[in-house]
């Protein structure tokens, strides 16, 4: 745009130098040229930075160009204007239209073009063929120029966004690799050896073990993996539940389910594990097994804790206490599945959650 402004400025200067002897006010001609040179310098410097492309400056730009077009009638004798003499700024005036197009897209470009065209018509007080062609050219410059600039800006923004995303993912992978190779290994080691030592070390080992699984879940990042065709991998949802007292066993591949049943199964399994922590005793361990037989998906949560007598669940239900078992059953019923609870004193508890596929 700066190049266009400079080239058209030189063209205008050449025309003024050639024609100034015929002007009604040659001094005014030189003054107009000085204004154009000064204004060119101001806009080129200001527009160089995106922050400099302020709406008020662009309006001023259009106003200056329009004023110079109108000044032609004061400087050049009417006879020459009617004979088709060029305006004082000639094509230099179009540079403000381009500025509008850059800042405001096609609409801005057309608006700027409209003002300059209006000034041109007022100055000529007629619409000869040559002026009409110029008008069409200015309209095209404003509209199409604005459109192209807008497209370019959008493409640039999209490319910028993609590059940022790519960099973020690469950085995330790099950190995950680093954590996997160092911190996780050391935490696992502390967890394993601390338990051997017993006493206070065993407590530290337990903490290290919990942090290891939490950190592992974080860097394996199931949350950032986009669901495949709107489906969720149940194994990915359940694996973070594993820890020093909970073992999660799944098939090797992804266990894909629709969003609602997958989340219901994961939430129900989480509740069953909370229950193990609360009621099965301090030493209880739990195992989660995910099975996928194609027609349905089954999640079993078994613990080796205290267990309870067969009638107790029914008693609690009859007494109107809606226990965790009821909430688990409710979750499964909502997605067309079922849950059953088996237990006997001293034999631990097993909760089996099943959801049919469609």
């Amino acid at each position, binding site marked *: 745009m700066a190049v266009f402004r400079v080239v058209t400025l030189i063209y205008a200067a050449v025309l003024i130098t050639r024609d100034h002897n015929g002007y009604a006010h040659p001094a005014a001609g030189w003054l107009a040229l000085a204004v154009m040179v000064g204004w060119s310098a101001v806009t080129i410097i200001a527009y160089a930075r995106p922050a400099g492309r302020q709406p008020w400056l662009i309006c001023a730009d259009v106003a200056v160009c329009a004023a110079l077009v109108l000044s032609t009638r004061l400087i050049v004798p009417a006879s020459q204007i009617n004979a088709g003499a060029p305006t004082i700024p000639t094509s230099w005036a179009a540079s403000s239209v381009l500025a509008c197009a850059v800042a405001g897209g096609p609409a801005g470009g057309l608006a700027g073009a409209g003002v300059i065209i209006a000034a041109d018509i007022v100055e000529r007080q007629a619409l000869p063929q040559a002026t009409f062609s110029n008008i069409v050219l200015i309209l095209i410059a404003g509209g199409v120029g604005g459109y192209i600039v807008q497209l370019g800006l959008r493409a640039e923004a999209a490319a910028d966004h993609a590059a940022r995303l790519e960099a973020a993912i690469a950085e995330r992978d790099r950190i995950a690799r680093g954590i996997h190779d160092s911190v996780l290994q050391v935490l696992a080691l502390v967890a394993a050896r601390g*338990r051997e030592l017993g006493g206070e070390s065993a407590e530290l080992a337990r903490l290290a073990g919990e942090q290891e699984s939490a950190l*592992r879940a974080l860097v394996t990042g199931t949350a950032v993996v986009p669901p495949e065709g709107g489906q969720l991998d149940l194994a990915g949802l359940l694996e973070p539940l594993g820890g020093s007292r909970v073992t999660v*066993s799944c098939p*090797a*591949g992804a266990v894909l389910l629709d969003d609602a049943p997958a989340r219901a199964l994961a939430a129900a399994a989480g509740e069953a594990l909370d229950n193990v922590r609360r009621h099965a005793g301090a030493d209880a*361990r*739990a195992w989660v097994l995910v*099975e996928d037989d*194609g027609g349905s998906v089954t999640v079993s949560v078994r613990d080796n804790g205290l267990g309870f007598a067969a009638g107790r669940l029914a008693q609690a239900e009859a007494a109107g206490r809606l226990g965790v078992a009821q909430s688990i059953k409710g979750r499964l019923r909502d997605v067309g599945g079922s849950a059953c609870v088996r237990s006997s004193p001293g034999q631990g508890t097993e909760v089996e959650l099943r959801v049919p596929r469609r």
Partner: protein
Amino acid sequence: MCPDAELRILVVDDHPIWRHSVAAGLEEAGCTVAGTAGDGAQALRVATATRPGVVLLDLNLPDMSGAEVTRRLLAADPAVRVLILSASGERQDVLDAMTAGATGYLVKSAQFSELLAAVRSAAAGEAVFTPGLAGLVLGEYRRLAAGSAAEAEGGPAGSAGPVGPSRAASPGQPRLTERETEVLRLVAKGMTYPEIAALLVLSPRTVQNHVQNTLIKLQLHNKAQLVRYALEQGIE
């Protein structure tokens, strides 16, 4: 704790802190550490030179997959026992290494006493089954069954015969018996062999055999698949 000082172990892990700590622990327990290696190629060289009885193999090696290392170790010495020691969250890698011929699988967060017991079992040729591995093996049989059912349905209709499409699978496709499925599910739910034996009124030895069979069938199938693939590709 390790009664057999003749038992020679190779520790393979790309992480030096882990490698040295496990090696030191094994030595303390009275085992002989035949060597350590930080990648697959080194593991194969050290194994050739030192002939270990058991290889403790991490799956996360920089140069080759755990399955590849396992296959090559067994090709060089069919008597070697490979015990996979891996971080969780690498399920397909674990399954690949197991079907490639590994004897057992432990997670890295297992207690050291569990690791020693696993090394001893592996040295005796017994499959080391954790609940996680049982879950993987169950899943793999289901995947194979689903694959062959889909194949049969897509194949010529006449070949299925009166027994229905699911029975039309090739006879070479490994299947679990009902008892094996039952035992494997209980292992996956955390029950020990004695507990399962008591529940099903079997001897613990029978339970162990059932579990072992499920793995051997998968490994044979895998080997047959590799041979078939090699023949199809014209590799001698």
